């Protein structure tokens, strides 16, 4: 960190501000056009009865929402979205954390970490459509999983995976985990390698165990990265769409067991007339739920910062991360 002299500051201020606006303009314009405007427009659409098939529409107040709240599938989709996200996020962060600790550990000295990291990240590069179709073929009644397990004597009869609610959810959760733990791993590893090794050296001199080092040094200093991972995963999880949509018939079959809120939104949009209004009301609910959940996560994870002692380390660490 270089000390700033007051003289430089006053002469450069105007210019710097001007460039500041200029450099942020592309983002601001993009944000206003492609994020804020659609968001506000979605709120507006959700109080109309607009469909794809007619030009005229009316503002109908909260009717879309009253219908939505009496729609059993909405509650099912809401529950599913949380269940499917949590079931894939917990093992995802757990295993990514474990691997990240191993890969960054100076004592273990695991070889080819770059290769492993790339291999684990690979599923994320595949098209979700390809993955969904691949898993559908694997687990279909006449597919290889059944053929292998039955012939190897592991199970007696073929399982109709995609006509069973539990199996369909299990497969979906596995696919989501498999696609995303590599990405989480990379972020956690980046966070861990940016923690200064001096802390660990000092701890080792003091005779701290590996577990102590992990809980007292790694976890607290990793908190900003954890907040980031959790919030992005939450936002992504609430918008889970492509795999559940493509894995079965696009309606969350069997029995809506893998119907997420986004699939429900698309179903309302893609039904006979293209009910834009009704679909928007689902979108608005997703937005509200995601916002509240994300704020709660950020608040929950940043509350402990009030303890003065830990905070000092924290601020220092943040500076370290950026350096």
């Amino acid at each position, binding site marked *: 960190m270089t000390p700033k002299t007051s003289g430089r500051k006053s002469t450069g201020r105007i210019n710097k501000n001007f460039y500041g606006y200029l450099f942020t303009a592309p983002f601001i314009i993009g944000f206003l056009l492609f994020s804020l405007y659609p968001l506000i427009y979605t709120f507006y659409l959700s109080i109309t009865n607009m469909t794809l098939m007619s030009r005229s529409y009316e503002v109908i107040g909260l009717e879309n929402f009253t219908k939505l709240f009496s729609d059993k599938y909405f509650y099912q989709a809401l529950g599913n979205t949380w269940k499917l996200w949590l079931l894939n996020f917990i093992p995802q962060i757990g295993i990514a954390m474990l691997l990240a600790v191993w890969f960054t550990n100076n004592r273990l000295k695991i070889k080819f970490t770059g290769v492993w990291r790339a291999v684990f990240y690979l599923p994320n590069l595949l098209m979700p459509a390809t993955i969904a179709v691949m898993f559908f073929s694997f687990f279909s009644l006449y597919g290889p999983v059944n053929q292998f397990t039955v012939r190897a004597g592991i199970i007696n009869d073929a399982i109709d995976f995609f006509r069973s609610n539990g199996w369909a959810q299990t497969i979906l959760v596995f696919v989501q985990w498999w696609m995303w733990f590599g990405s989480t791993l990379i972020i956690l590893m980046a966070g861990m390698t940016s923690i200064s090794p001096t802390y660990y050296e000092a701890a080792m001199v003091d005779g701290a165990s590996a577990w102590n080092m992990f809980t007292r040094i790694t976890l607290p200093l990793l908190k900003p990265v954890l907040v980031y991972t959790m919030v992005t995963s939450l936002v992504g999880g609430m918008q889970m769409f492509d795999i559940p949509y493509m894995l079965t018939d696009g309606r969350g079959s069997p029995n809506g067991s893998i119907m997420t809120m986004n699939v429900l939104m698309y*179903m309302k949009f893609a039904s006979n007339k293209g009910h834009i209004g009704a679909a928007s009301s689902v979108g608005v609910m997703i937005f509200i739920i995601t916002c509240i959940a994300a704020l709660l996560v950020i608040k929950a994870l940043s509350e402990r910062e009030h303890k003065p002692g830990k905070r000092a380390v924290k601020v220092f660490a943040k500076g370290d991360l950026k350096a």
Partner: protein
Amino acid sequence: MFYRRSLAKEYFGTDDPVKIQELVTGMDKFEAAAKVVKEKSKGNTYMIGSTGDFANLFFANRKTPWVVDDKLVIDPMVDQLFETAKSFRQNGYEAQANQWQEGWFAGMNDSLVDAKGNQKQVFSYLLPTWGLPYVLMPNAAPKEVKEEGSEKSKTVGKDTAGDWACINGPMPYQWGGTWIGAMKDAKELDLAKEFVKFTTLNADTLKAWALGTYTNEYLRKIDPSIGDKLAQGPGDFICSQKVVEEITSKFDDAATSKFLAGQNSYKGFAAAAPTIDLKLIQASDDAIQRSLNDPLNNYASNKQTKEEAVQQFKDAVKSALPDIIVE
């Protein structure tokens, strides 16, 4: 309906379309025939690939449309569909495949193998006119697959062309087709009208469409930028009775007829066409009928009672179609 001649001979002693038609006219007889197929094949041949195959038959023979005065109406035919589907699944008359998925197609070229490694066969497919050139024929040939870890490839299944026959089946029905329309307030309404006339009423266009005139070379001369697989093969059934009558004899030696062991399917379609009723078709049909998939499956597999299944169907319709009243 399309069935396998060799299997018909084995189980019914004849492959004559007229005699087989007698054996399957009406759903009750169809079910009885399914029982014969199962017993004589010792459970190794299924009457059909999936319960979804005959759903359209029931839908096409309803008395009332799905939606009357914005309200959902469940025709008695739906109840019959539930019972038939349950009977077929519980008795093992269907392969439990899903339409448009591997297991379902596998029955067409005899490559259906269950998890234990037993060879299974499918006796019949309930497909409409377009099912012959677009679904059955392309999938009735052996498929080449690469062996794992080597460049060698092996073929799976066998060529079943020539082993098929075409009959009206248990009930008259239709299954979609291609529809062309124009928006009410379209800017170029006259031009759109001309286009609709050209594609649906112009005898020359219809003939060219059905007889396979629109080969890739033909289309390329008009527009060289098109893909090299774009073409319209012969055999699609068309909408003008006059033109159909005129060209039926041209299919006596066509690939479709060879596929059916000399039977001219066009003749059969032409005879069946006047019995097709399109009055029930509504824009919401697809969404409603899809909503029935899960409840139907649950009831057929004994996972739900009929009340539960019907309730789930109603909830699904309500969710998919916000402006339909469900009571």
